């Protein structure tokens, strides 16, 4: 249970309308007694203590707070929690299982799709919404689908690669090696992470340098 009027005296609190909401979040049913003005992002973070969802700009611009509501990406800072009553919400915590990362998460790891990581949960949820509808997106389609999510670190390049990587993996194909000619996808890379470090050593070194050097 969570509310936004904890600071109020009981007499004042009695004046405030509260509503019970029942939300299925990452497969679990949760209930909360809330004020209608509570934003979904705040219920998720402060009420349900799922702090993977980030609030970045708080002004409907950045997309860091993106979650899926009934499968569609929404900015959780721009939906009232009460509107999620009876709906299903998926946050970034809903991607991985206890033993395994989601392919999108693996892609971000493998392709260095993040630096500071603040925008990452929103990026991943937008990517999830895209791949749920289209498992074979072009680079343009990935860029288009992520155009509501801002990243101030990466320049987006590796994020796009990460999503294409995840798409390939989810199709059951060997994830692409970027930097190689585009049509070389027929050159199968063994789906074995042991081989990856050698393939990517240059790129990894560059990414590490820039992270260390310029922050």
């Amino acid at each position, binding site marked *: 249970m969570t509310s936004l009027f904890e600071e109020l005296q009981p007499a004042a609190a009695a004046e405030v309308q509260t509503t019970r909401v029942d939300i299925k979040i990452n497969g679990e049913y949760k209930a909360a007694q809330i004020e209608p003005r509570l934003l979904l992002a705040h219920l998720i973070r402060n009420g349900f203590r799922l702090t993977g969802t980030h609030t970045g700009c*708080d002004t409907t611009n950045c997309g860091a707070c993106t979650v899926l509501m009934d499968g569609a990406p929404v900015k959780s800072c721009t939906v009232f929690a009460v509107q999620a009553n009876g709906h299903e919400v998926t946050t970034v915590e809903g991607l991985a299982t206890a033993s395994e990362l989601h392919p999108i998460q693996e892609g971000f790891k493998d392709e260095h799709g993040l630096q500071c990581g603040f925008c990452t949960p929103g990026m991943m949820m937008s990517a999830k919404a895209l791949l749920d509808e289209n498992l074979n997106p072009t680079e343009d389609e990935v860029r288009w689908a992520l155009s509501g999510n801002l990243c101030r670190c990466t320049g987006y390049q590796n994020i796009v690669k990460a999503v294409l990587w995840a798409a390939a993996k989810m199709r059951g194909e060997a994830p692409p090696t970027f930097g190689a000619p585009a049509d070389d996808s027929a050159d199968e890379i063994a789906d074995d992470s042991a081989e990856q470090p050698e393939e990517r050593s240059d790129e990894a070194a560059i990414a590490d340098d820039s992270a260390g050097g310029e922050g």
Partner: protein
Amino acid sequence: MFPSRFRYEAPTSIEEAIALLGANEDAKVLAGGQSLIPMMKLRFANPALLVDINNIPDMGYHRADADGSFRIGALCRHADLEKSTILREHQPLLAAAAPLVADPIVRSRGTFVGSVCHADPQGDWAACMVALGGSIIAQGPNGKRAVEVKDFVSGPFTTVLARDEIAIEGVVPSAQGTRTGGYLKLERRVGDFATAAVAVSLDMSGGVVKNAGIGLVGVGAQTIDASEAAAALIGSSLDDDAVDRAAELAAAASNPRGDHRGSADYKRHIISTFVTRIIANVQRSEMQVA
């Protein structure tokens, strides 16, 4: 950041929603909320009551009717339109604008009718509706009425909706011949306010323009109906003279202010360029079909 306190009701019928609006002085309808909620968070809007219409069934439709009109329900989201094949088939202007509204995440929540009702001079849909001669159907306690969008928007963020009326549907009238057109928008990045945008709708028959409309975005205190510019196209075969004249008149109809997105002259130039470019695109795609 969160809004000031408000009461919240989520009725399950239009009638109930209208009654709530009528009984409360300071009530506001919540549909997609992608403009209203940000404004409430900034405390630009402080309604005492929010009437959430999202639980009212059967309002998420968009459809082409047998009489040639196209109808969009109050809960039809931008994303529904962006993905719609019937929209592409029947309403090329709306189909061109759909992917350019806000950003993908906002599009999955925001609504077409809500965007028109928000009456932001930067709104994409109001300009499209002005170009198409479209209307909003408003329902109140005494029934429904249709208001043309050019009359519906009475000023910046202001419409002629009565306190106890809800905009339940957008209606685009049937085409006089084959409908074509396009939408071009200049924005610095996705989701930013447009520097300027232009909506052009053309109904063609036998290579001649039977009906035309031009709506301008972001170049005045409200959506601009460039009716004189559109009139210059009607009866023409989209020859260079007519197109140049329309582009010139559209720029003259705009009333931009210089700001960090560009000078007034620059914005006027964008308007005339976009009119010309949309029509050139239309002609090019018709040549491909022929």
